[in-house]
């Protein structure tokens, strides 16, 4: 599947050079391109990243660029089923249904508290925990969790209700995930309606797209353009 070319010896880039070879020993299964980085999933379920790192999107714990594919050591031993690249963030889904996410969080695309949403008053109120005083809360003593601008290491993300993820796709600054039970969750930049929650609010936490629940549709796949989201869904009961 593009941008990976058949044979997995090379991929296409939207910027010259358009044809880019890949070392065959990488055994690429899937490749995703961000605005300034690339993610590669190999046959063994390992993730590699390279390109610019200034937004933490490479996941190696620094902001340095990587000229060549570099293995994500933090995920070693956790076989991944899917990778997805947003403009400046990266997501992968493990074979057991866990989501790992890293990179830029300026619009909440990592599902971590982001200052821009808090200041615009646009954060959807977090579930009352009894400790929440209006700012993001974390920790049992109710101390507010800090805002996160970027996350240079993979972070484990739990969906509400502990649902297992099976597919993920990223737009420029938003993220979409399909669960094993056929639900769709989205978060991040919402200004152009790309989150599908019937408004243009951005979110820094995962929220289920109720449209598919209301219409009794089972989501099978999701694919994001830069500022939009495409979903493949079937009526529940269909095989």
């Amino acid at each position, binding site marked *: 599947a593009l941008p990976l070319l058949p044979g997995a010896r090379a991929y296409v880039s939207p910027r010259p050079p358009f044809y880019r070879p890949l070392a065959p020993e990488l055994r690429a299964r899937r490749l995703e391109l961000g605005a300034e980085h690339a993610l590669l999933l190999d046959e063994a379920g390992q993730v590699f990243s390279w390109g610019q790192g200034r937004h933490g999107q490479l996941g190696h714990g620094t902001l340095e660029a990587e000229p060549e594919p570099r293995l994500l050591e933090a995920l070693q031993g956790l076989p991944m089923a899917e990778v997805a690249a947003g403009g400046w963030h990266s997501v992968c889904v493990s074979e057991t249904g866990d989501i790992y996410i890293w990179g830029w969080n300026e619009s909440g695309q990592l599902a971590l508290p982001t200052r821009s949403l808090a200041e615009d008053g646009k954060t959807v109120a977090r579930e009352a925990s009894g400790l929440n005083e209006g700012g993001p809360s974390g920790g049992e003593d109710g101390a507010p969790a800090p805002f996160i601008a970027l996350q240079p290491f993979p972070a484990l993300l739990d969906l509400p209700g502990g649902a297992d993820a099976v597919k993920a796709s990223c737009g420029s600054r938003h993220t979409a995930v399909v669960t094993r039970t056929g639900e769709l969750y989205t978060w991040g930049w919402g200004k152009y309606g790309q989150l599908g929650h019937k408004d243009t609010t951005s979110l820094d936490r995962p929220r289920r797209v109720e449209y598919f629940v209301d219409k009794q549709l089972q989501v099978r796949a999701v694919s994001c353009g830069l*500022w939009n989201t495409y979903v493949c869904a079937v009526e529940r009961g269909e095989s």
Partner: protein
Amino acid sequence: MAEDHREPLAGAGALRETLRVLLPHTKEELVPELGEKVERSVVRLLWEAAELFCGGCRRECLQASEAILDYSWEKLNTGPWQDVHKDWRRVYAFGCLLKAVCLFEEPGDGPAVAAALKACDMGLLMGAAIHGDILIKVAAVLQAHLPSGKRPGPGPAQEQPSMKKARDDPVSVPDVALERPVPRLRCPSLQHFRKQFLVPGRPVILEGVADQWPCMTKWSLEYIQDIAGCRTVPVEVGSRYTDEDWSQTLMTVNEFISRYVRSESRDVGYLAQHQLFDQIPELKQDIGIPDYCCLGDGEEEEITINAWFGPQGTVSPLHQDPQQNFLVQVLGRKYIRLYSPQESEALYAHETHLLHNTSQVDVENPDLEKFPKFAEAPFLSCVLSPGEILFIPVQYWHYVRALDLSFSVSFWWS
């Protein structure tokens, strides 16, 4: 600013007229010239937006300008800043221009005019000049039309922070008498400066050169707020840029002063390394350019002038710059330490590309176990006071700490 610049509600038609006169009249003239880096689909969007503007469809034009801004903003954030094509910055500036002139209906609508002014500032900060720096002209017009409540003049209850600064730890003024001083000269000739300091790369403090600049008597917190209070500027938050919790953010000068200068903020905020005088030309009239810059190879327009404005306690970690520097002190004093490039080995620069010009050593609290050679590295130091200019030769390592509320102006030249 003089009283007669304020035109409250009566200015409704006058404001729109003033702006209309400033802008190109036809859509052909309105859309900036762009090369092939900008996709045709985007150019088409610019034309559509220009047509909407010329047709008076304010709301639709605003929507189109938002898309122009969002798209070009993504380009501005892709790859290293110096590699961002200037055309994308022109597109961004164009989006800011349309947004600014479409944002408000009534000039009495303070928040809308402030938002329009912010749009101009974003275009000035991140965009590239279009239509002969039109954003500066639009900003000046908007600033003059802010409803009087929004324009902060000197109020009766403004405390003088320089007297009030009761921080928990009293500022430690190093005893520079115990350290090797930077030599001082009063108005040296160009030849003398070149021969003794520029060519051999030796620091020196120049006295009597900038002390008559208007800024030395005119600038105060009140004056700065009056001229630039409602303008949006970049601010660095965090004790120093090598810290993990250091960040950059945007806010108006008023917000910066109220949050980080007048009040006892837990965080340090620093309006640092910002070309404020390009953004607000009125301030540029208060400063000069040191004559000695003509000894360089570059043109006067190529000299980078930066403002450094912040409370007592701001720190610039030990680092080196790729150009010659005249650091002019206007308000307050700064403690400065200088290490020759020959001592670089003892200064333990970071190995990352991002910070390769910055030392790992905390100059006034060095970890000598980790950085043993630092203890023996010779240095010069000084307390730079208002009216004085410090010449920092190219690649000369320098560390700066503000001892008071401080405003400095730096001139980077080659």
